[in-house]
């Protein structure tokens, strides 16, 4: 049982880490600020989701698991709205220049 759980954790964390890599590649390679923002926000949060899913399988305590999931949900909320705000600012600064 533990072996299966461990294998699932490894798989999920590796997928999450690869998403972080994809996000960084997008950040380095995409041509303008809006696409870079898109790469960073979406992909990194997905990566964080996979990592949290993998970590959930390793925690025995319910409270710890709830907190882990709570952090992920909170980051979804805040990063999502902040990304909108940054996008607005990018569009605004383009309009000015």
């Amino acid at each position, binding site marked *: 049982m533990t072996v299966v759980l461990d294998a699932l954790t490894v798989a999920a964390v590796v997928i999450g880490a690869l998403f972080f890599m994809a996000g960084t590649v997008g950040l380095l390679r995409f041509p303008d*600020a809006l696409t870079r923002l898109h790469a960073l926000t979406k992909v990194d949060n997905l990566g964080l989701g996979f990592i949290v899913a993998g970590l959930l399988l390793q925690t025995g305590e319910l409270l710890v698991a709830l907190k882990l999931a709570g952090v992920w949900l909170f980051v979804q909320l805040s990063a999502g709205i902040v990304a909108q705000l940054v996008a607005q600012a990018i569009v605004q600064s383009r309009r000015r220049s």
Partner: protein
Amino acid sequence: MTDFLVLAACFVMAMVALGLIGIAVRGPGVDLILAVQLIGSGGTAILLLLAVATETPPIIDVALMLALLAAFAAVAFVASMPGATGGKVEVADDSRP
């Protein structure tokens, strides 16, 4: 498992570092704030990995704090951008001498 999770944390940190270098070599501009977004999601992932790897649940609170304050700093940056300030000012006159 511990070693694997710390390895994953190393990997995410390397990705964050690469992303930061990418932002650093680019000139000034709005997408500077992507650095804060990057450390917000990447740093949260690193801390969560460390929390489970070292079996120290309070580190999860640190991850939440990091995510929350990274969002706050991003908002403060967007709000202070040139052109963003100066227009709408809400003042009640009753407090004036």
